């Protein structure tokens, strides 16, 4: 077996070996610098954790708060469960409840067994705004009946959308109302009180 000339290698390594070590302080300085870096990182992590906790704590009550009275909905037709809100927004337009209005007819959507098409006459004395102002609500439903009511809203004060539409529509407003369960022959009462039956 071939063996390397160890003395040559040892001599070479000796040539690369310095006489003495540099001052130990350089190692201690490096240790201190490393500790400082670690502390800075730990402090930064702690600050971030505290900030995250503060944000979470501040956000929590917000999530638990009652919804604001002013709600934002894309279409009034979706505001269909329970009593009507006092006001709501369509985009940036504030709409304020004026009162209940009559329902002229109710029919079932031929393609959707849970969808009612509710017609509400327009108010001939009030200029229609360019945003939907009629809302139909489901006030209650059980195995044999469904009670609905229509409400009129007006554009709130100092709203640009309160201007009269150029070509106001004369026909009744048709509002689609999803019962979320098939009507299935149940009676439909219109109005918050009384038993005015419009379907079945």
């Amino acid at each position, binding site marked *: 077996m*071939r063996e*390397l000339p160890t003395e040559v290698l040892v001599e*070479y*390594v000796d040539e690369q070996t310095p006489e003495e070590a540099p001052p130990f302080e350089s*190692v201690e300085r490096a240790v201190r610098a490393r500790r400082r870096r670690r502390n800075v990182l730990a402090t930064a992590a702690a600050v971030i954790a505290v900030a995250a906790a503060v944000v979470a704590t501040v956000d929590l009550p917000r999530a638990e708060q009652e919804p604001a009275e002013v709600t934002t909905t894309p279409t009034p037709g979706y505001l269909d469960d329970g009593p009507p809100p006092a006001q709501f927004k369509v985009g940036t337009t504030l709409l304020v409840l004026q009162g209940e209005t009559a329902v002229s007819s109710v029919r079932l959507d031929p393609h959707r067994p849970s969808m009612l098409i509710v017609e509400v006459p327009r108010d001939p004395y009030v200029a229609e705004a360019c945003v939907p102002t009629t809302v139909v609500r489901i006030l209650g439903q059980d195995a044999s009946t469904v009670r609905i009511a229509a409400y009129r809203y007006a554009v709130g004060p100092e709203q640009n959308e309160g201007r009269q539409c150029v070509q106001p529509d004369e026909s009744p407003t048709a509002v689609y109302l999803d019962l979320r369960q098939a009507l299935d022959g149940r009676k439909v009462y219109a109005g918050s009180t009384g038993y005015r039956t419009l379907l079945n």
Partner: protein
Amino acid sequence: MQDFDGDPAADVAALYRRTWPRLIGVLVSIGGSRADAEEVAQDAYVKLLSRWDSIRRYDDPEAWVRAVAVRTLVSRLRRQQVATRALAKLRGRPTDVRGPDGEALDVAAALARITPAQRAVVVLHHVMDLPIEQIAEELQLPPGTVKSRLARARQALAPLLAVKEVTDHA
């Protein structure tokens, strides 16, 4: 197990003064610049000082520092070698490795012909007199790998260094 007087900084400082020069010699021989060797060595002593409470109980704390430094340097050199080869490929020029200069025994040039990992086992075995098992432990390799690296290194270095034929009586 060695005796230390209990002051971590003083203990490590004493070990540092005693072992630093040889460690630098070993690291420079394995490869890289003197600056690389000093940086890697300093990093190893910094780690030693931070973990002195547990390492002081070892039989040979010097072996621990050397193992950390050699492993770090070998992996650093391996990365540099990969980068150099990739660069040479991009430029379309082969990596230039200088051979021995005439009759002069150029150990550095001979060592440059083998890989950093092979240089590490050659230096640790032939210069530091470490047995195969200890090298395997320090480099965290199977003993078989150390043996094969050593054999390949000898084979590569044989034509470059003055070698003598010896009979293996083992």
